[in-house]
């Protein structure tokens, strides 16, 4: 039974529609990866699910977000506040600036438990120390009394994760949790998240631009481009037989077994800006297989075996 179901999500900022037609669902204990280049709309999807769009001046224009039976697009402010942090936790991208620099670590994490679980300060502190321990932060009690600027990036990210977990949520949304970290630390955090999902039966939506991360941890994946989902399915299937040319190109970009002088693969061209989404299939200017129909008509999603893709060649109407 899916705990989170996104159907046909469309988002607008004033007259601009950066996101449209996003569909996916996720169960507890599953990890769903959303992958795409910068500007593909991944973060916007995360913000929509958390109901934080109005903060940036955006609004949901179409579709529904179903969480455990509730349609989030129709939620009141009060209900949202219970949900955020309480049942869905957010892990943000840049740990260096995500914590309040003026407050000690302890109170920042305690706040969540006090707010959502009705704990007293002492109880919340116990819980905080416990969580910090499970996240393998050394000296949890001492850490509670430190300030964010006294900690490293990796540590800060763990604290952000702690804040997301404190109220025993059912789902976690991780928006590029490792992008701003060193490679070694990245691996640790990814493993940590993986652990959490399995041990606590969480649903994790992992947003990243790194295909290798997807390969390591996710069960399902949604590939996004220019504000649209263009392919999705189980990770194994997508990696073995990607159907959309973009997905194929992305996988082709993962460096492996390169000889010293070999060049890295790249996708020609650049990601279109929100103002300039191409007509028809958004990828067609950069697609090596583009046909005439690709520049005029938006391809619909069509199933191919276990996955589905939005490509005219997959649908079968390209000549």
């Amino acid at each position, binding site marked *: 039974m899916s705990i989170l179901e996104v159907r046909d999500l469309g988002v607008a900022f004033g007259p601009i529609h950066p996101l449209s037609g996003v569909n996916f669902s996720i169960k507890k204990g599953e990890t769903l990866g959303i992958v795409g280049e910068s500007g593909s709309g991944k973060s916007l999807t995360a913000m929509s699910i958390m109901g934080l769009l109005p903060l940036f001046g955006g609004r949901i224009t179409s579709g529904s977000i179903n969480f455990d039976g509730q349609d989030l697009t129709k939620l009141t402010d009060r209900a949202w506040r219970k949900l955020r942090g309480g049942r869905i936790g957010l892990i943000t991208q840049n740990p260096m600036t995500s914590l309040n620099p*003026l407050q000690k670590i302890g109170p920042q994490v305690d706040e*969540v438990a006090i707010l959502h679980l009705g704990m007293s300060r002492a109880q919340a502190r116990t819980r905080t120390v416990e969580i910090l321990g499970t996240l393998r932060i050394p000296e949890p009690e001492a850490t509670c009394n430190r300030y964010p600027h006294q900690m490293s990036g990796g540590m800060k990210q763990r604290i952000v994760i702690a804040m997301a977990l404190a109220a025993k949520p059912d789902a976690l949304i991780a928006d590029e949790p490792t992008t701003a970290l060193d490679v070694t630390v990245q691996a640790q955090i990814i493993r940590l998240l993986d652990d959490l999902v399995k041990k606590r039966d969480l649903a994790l939506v992992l947003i990243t631009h790194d295909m290798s991360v997807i390969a390591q941890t996710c069960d399902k994946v949604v590939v996004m481009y220019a504000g649209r989902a263009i392919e999705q399915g189980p990770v194994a299937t997508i990696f073995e037989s990607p159907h959309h040319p973009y997905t194929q190109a992305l996988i082709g970009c993962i460096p492996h077994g390169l000889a010293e002088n070999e060049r890295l693969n790249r996708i020609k061209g650049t990601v279109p800006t929100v103002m300039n989404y191409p007509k028809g299939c958004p990828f067609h200017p950069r697609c090596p297989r583009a046909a005439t129909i690709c520049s005029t008509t938006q391809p619909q999603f069509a199933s191919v075996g276990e996955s589905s893709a939005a490509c005219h060649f997959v649908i079968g109407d390209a000549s």
Partner: protein
Amino acid sequence: MLLKYTFHRFLMLIPVSISISFVIFMIVYLLPGDPIDNLIRVGSSPEARERLTAKYGLDKPLLTQYFVWMGNMLRGDFGDAIVLRRPVADLIKQNLPYSLTLGGLAFAFSSVVGIILGTISAIVKNPIMERFFRGFILLGSTVPGFWLALLMILLFSVTLGWFPVSGAGSWQALVLPVLTIGFGGIALVARVTRVALLDVWRADFVKLLYAKGLSGRAILFKHLLPHAMLPVVTILALRIGWILGGAITVEFVFGRPGLGSLLIRALSQRDYPVVQGSLLMLALAVMLGTLIGDIAQAAMDPRVREEKS
């Protein structure tokens, strides 16, 4: 950590204080004529002159004199006023409370009102307000303080008769002086508060605060305001000196007792012991105020405490 910072800042004050006290000490020597003529009344007896010479060591080298002078000052002996023939220390003790009251009230008034106005304008998010503030600040910093004071007297005391024209008899007498000093300050504090709040609101960690499920009001009061207070405290600390300057003028215009009017009267009367004494006290007040401001900043922002600047 905080103690170390305070101590460090305090240490830095010492060379500053010494330099300033030296400058003030030198006043009597930079003036034309014999220093002793500036410290004593015209037509004093030779014995009185001798006594003074002995007391201040006026026949000894300059540096020794400075130390003697400083020694006296530190013991609370500021010399005797020429015109009023009383110990300067007495005059200062008499006038200091008035200045402190006026300065303190003006500071509190402009800070509190400024912060409230600034917060309101940030929440309400009105671009017209921004222009209004800029105009207000412009007026506050370009209108000579004493002129404003006199206009206020003209309007509120003479025409409307609401407040007394001068003196320090009642609390009503404080209203116009405090308003005059605070006038320019309110707009500045409000503007800084508003800008700081709007800036902080855009910071990264605010996103996470909303994600935690906190209400807008909780975020504002528990997280945003403390953050916004940082630049505000900086500005307030800087304004302590400014308020003091304003107090000097306002005391004079409203005929209130205080260090400021004491100083100005002494200057016109060339009563140099009084001049030196009150200058020293005022300089001290500025330095103390700045120090308190610095410490307050460090207390609020843990990052500042680590800097050695």
